[in-house]
């Protein structure tokens, strides 16, 4: 590994992976509703299709379509533990850059809100290349990333702003728990704030990275603060 890549990895370990590991169950309890475009993509897969959900988090997309089989993967052991409840699907702990799958065997892949957690353009392109490598010729991968252009949202990001940001995750200390615990001992009940690193994508950037990764774009668009694209790998 090059020194730069090592740095990227160490940075993400601290500002992405360690955070998800700690917020896993709280994060999971807020994630249950599938997004419409993702749901449609999964429902449109033919019966018997076999695919990957890379960075599957709590696995909320695994059970959308009962007629397909998905192998999910995520870097967070705690989230994979939660995702493993979605039978008959399978989940493993792995990194998007080192997937434990043979090349060219899957019918589709999704990777939702994951690639934006890699901290350099090179690593993001490499991540997309790694996802595309698992697919059969012309098989589609649906990729979602956070947009820089979020004018409608309370987060206040917009065109021209800083694309590399730290996003807070607030775990509220429960008041009830605080009162009960007062009589026992002092326990951490204040709000706890974690920060996750995100790269916010500007218009067109996801498509550029797909091309740089040796892929081509089948379809692309914007949905509520996210850029998305359906990509496939260029035949060799």
């Amino acid at each position, binding site marked *: *590994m090059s020194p730069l890549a090592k740095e990227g990895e160490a940075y993400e370990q601290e500002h992405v992976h360690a955070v998800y590991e700690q917020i896993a169950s709280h994060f999971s309890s807020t994630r249950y509703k599938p997004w419409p475009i993702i749901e449609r993509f999964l429902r449109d897969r033919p*019966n018997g299709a076999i695919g990957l959900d890379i960075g599957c988090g709590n696995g909320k997309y695994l059970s959308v379509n009962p007629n397909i*089989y998905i*192998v999910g993967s995520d870097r967070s052991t705690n989230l994979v533990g939660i995702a*493993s409840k979605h039978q*008959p699907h399978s989940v493993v702990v792995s*990194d998007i850059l*080192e997937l434990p*799958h043979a090349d060219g065997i899957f019918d589709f892949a999704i990777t939702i809100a994951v690639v934006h957690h890699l901290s350099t353009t090179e690593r993001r392109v490499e991540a997309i290349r790694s996802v595309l490598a698992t697919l059969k010729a012309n098989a589609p991968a649906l990729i979602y990333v956070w947009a820089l252009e979020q004018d409608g949202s309370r987060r206040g990001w917009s065109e021209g702003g800083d694309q590399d940001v730290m996003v807070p995750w607030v775990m509220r200390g429960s008041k009830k728990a605080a009162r009960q615990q007062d009589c026992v001992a002092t326990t951490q009940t204040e709000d706890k704030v974690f920060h996750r690193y995100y790269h916010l994508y500007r218009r067109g950037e996801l498509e550029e990275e797909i091309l740089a990764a040796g892929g081509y774009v089948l379809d692309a668009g914007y949905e509520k603060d996210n850029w998305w694209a359906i990509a496939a790998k260029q035949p060799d």
Partner: protein
Amino acid sequence: MKLLTLNFLTCARKTCKSTAAAFPLHPKDAELEQIEIDMNPLFVKNMLPRLEWEAMKTLTQELGLPALPAETPAPEELTTEDGEASQVLKDLHVLLMETSVASGKLVCGNCGHEYAVKEGIANFLLPSHMV
């Protein structure tokens, strides 16, 4: 981790992936468990043509499980004359969907790296010097 999963896994190291020796990964010191799940005949039927049959046979043998049929069963072997799930299908369901590795290791036949399985979950994260 159910046996079926192993059909779709190989060593995570780039230098191993394209080698025949890396697939299937070999279970070592594996503790098995049966996790009951609803039988879905269509699911099993859809899965069969996608299985690397020789690899699955190797795995059942290495784990000391009942042997798989010599060849991938044909679709007509999966239902009885009255359209019910056949014994062949039921056996495949038990073997592929319910038989799981609870803990142990998965060893790459190419580089020898051992991936741990704990509480039914396999971990493919590589130490950074191996990437």
